[in-house]
């Protein structure tokens, strides 16, 4: 699909490059400090850490470029302004908890679109988040495990070098810890199955889906999950057969996905929290003064949003001022539609054209 018009200036690229570099630098510093000067860093996972740093650069770059778009920048600022208003802040924090649970944890807005879509997305999202919560800290040397000095049967967990717990081998907690990535992989595979099922049967989805944007991410997640499960199968079922090859194959799938992260569909993971900010903006709009349509004299939205839109339209060189001194932004959508029909009809009338024979 063609991208909406937005001219990228050289300064935008430089700005985004700087943010990308800063994000990557923060991660590198975080890795060095969090792994206690790389003492806890596992060299076997260096390729994952390196790809994560590149992904961090890409995410910083893309996010900064996204925020350079005038509407994004405007509403990003307005969202924070509304959220941080001192008199609203306590209520906003309480509301944030509610919408976080609804929109992020349960993803109810997707459930209302379709239960099949929700099932697919919920398993994909939580499978990926679970895997990320394990993989990234391990790759960065923030979390490590070691056996206790006095017993080979006890495993101790450390976070940033501090002991955070221990467990005995063979206990349920040990099994859960050692197999949590397998659980995540199964969750992702369930999500991929439902997503592909929907995409292969829903005619509407089939007509608008694109390989690079809609199918490739599913293929990548499938590849990561299945190669991850192959490693477990190789260890437990095949006496380590082809383990080295499989681990390299798994690493390649993960690294490619990390590099795709900032530039493909997965970027919505970072973009989506804006939905929470807009929720506060809309609540403030409902509580505030309403815009009144100049044609029908009925309220049709928040005055704050209409004023912001006029500012935005100026930035985007959208010139909606009408000849009679009114502003087209002050006309409600229903009146716009009625007005268009009357304008078209009026052309026939003004030219004295007989309706018959048209």
């Amino acid at each position, binding site marked *: *699909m*063609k991208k*909406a*018009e*937005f001219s990228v200036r050289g300064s935008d690229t430089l700005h985004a490059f700087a943010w990308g570099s800063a994000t990557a630098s923060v991660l590198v510093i975080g890795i060095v400090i969090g792994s206690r000067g790389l003492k806890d860093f596992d060299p076997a996972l260096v390729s994952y850490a390196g790809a994560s740093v590149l992904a961090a650069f890409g995410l910083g770059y893309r996010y900064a470029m*996204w925020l350079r*778009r005038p*509407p*994004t920048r*405007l509403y990003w600022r307005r969202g924070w302004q509304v959220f941080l208003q001192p008199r609203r802040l306590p209520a906003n924090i309480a509301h944030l908890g509610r919408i976080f649970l609804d929109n992020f944890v349960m993803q109810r807005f*997707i459930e*209302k*679109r379709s239960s099949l879509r929700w099932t697919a997305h919920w398993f994909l999202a939580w499978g990926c988040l679970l895997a990320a919560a394990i993989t990234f800290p391990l790759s960065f040397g923030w979390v490590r495990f070691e056996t206790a000095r006095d017993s080979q049967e006890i495993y101790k967990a450390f976070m940033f070098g501090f002991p955070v717990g221990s467990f005995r081998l063979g206990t349920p907690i040990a099994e859960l810890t050692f197999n949590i990535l397998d659980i995540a992989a199964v969750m992702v595979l369930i999500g991929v199955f439902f997503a592909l099922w929907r995409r292969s049967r*829903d005619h509407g989805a*089939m*007509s*608008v889906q694109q390989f690079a944007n809609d199918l490739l991410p599913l293929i990548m997640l499938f590849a990561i999950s299945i190669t991850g499960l192959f490693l477990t199968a190789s260890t437990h079922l095949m006496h380590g057969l082809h383990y080295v090859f499989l681990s390299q194959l798994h690493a390649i799938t993960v690294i490619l996905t990390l590099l795709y992260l900032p530039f493909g*569909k997965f970027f*919505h993971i970072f*973009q*989506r929290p804006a939905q929470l*900010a*807009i929720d506060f*903006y*809309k609540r403030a709009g409902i509580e505030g003064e309403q815009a009144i349509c*100049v*044609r029908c004299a009925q309220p*049709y939205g928040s005055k704050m*949003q209409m004023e912001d*839109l006029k500012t*935005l*339209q100026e930035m*985007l060189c*959208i010139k*909606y*001022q*009408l*000849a*009679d001194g009114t*502003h*087209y932004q002050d*006309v409600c*959508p*229903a*009146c*716009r*539609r*009625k*007005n*268009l*029909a*009357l*304008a*078209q*009809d009026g*052309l*026939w009338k003004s*030219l004295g054209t007989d*309706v018959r024979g*048209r």
Partner: protein
Amino acid sequence: MSESAFFIDHSRCIGCQSCVQACAECDTHRGVSMIHLETIQRSDSVQTAPQVCMHCEDPICARVCPADAIKKTPDGVVQSSLKPRCIGCSNCVVSCPFGVPKYSAQIDQMMKCDMCYDRSSIGKKPMCASVCPSGALTYTTMEEIQRTRSGIPINTWRFGEEIVKTKVYVMVPREVERIDVSLVQISGTPSPLAADPYDVALMLEGAQ
């Protein structure tokens, strides 16, 4: 023969609602009708007007979208917002010069007419145009529309100083090159009688 295009003639609309019903049959937004059918002013006029997405060349809805969620297909059809991106701000709803996008609070997403992309992308007519009995909504070739109508199709609009070109055409008299939109009010002949509180037309008008 050229490719088919979409043509609207608002003044041919008879308000039968066929388009509204057929629109909901489209696979890309199953069960939800995306077309608008406006009653202009029930107490003074029987006129109704259908409004589909005009599929602007440079869509204002996409330009004002903070989430960069509205995209055009290579063949110029402006799609509903991308589900993973749309944050439900309604900027597109209140910015579209034609008043087309609809915001669904239930799913927190903007949806709009996508010219029945599951059909039109494979050469079939959009649902609304396939059922319209009066020719207010027509999907045909340029040659055919010029052969069968006395007016001409145009796709250039002016809203204030904003010039908008669209993929969808509107039928106008031959002398017209562009529709300059200004606010048009419709008002009936003032009644010598006091307003009737049981006037059904007024009640319906108020209920809109």
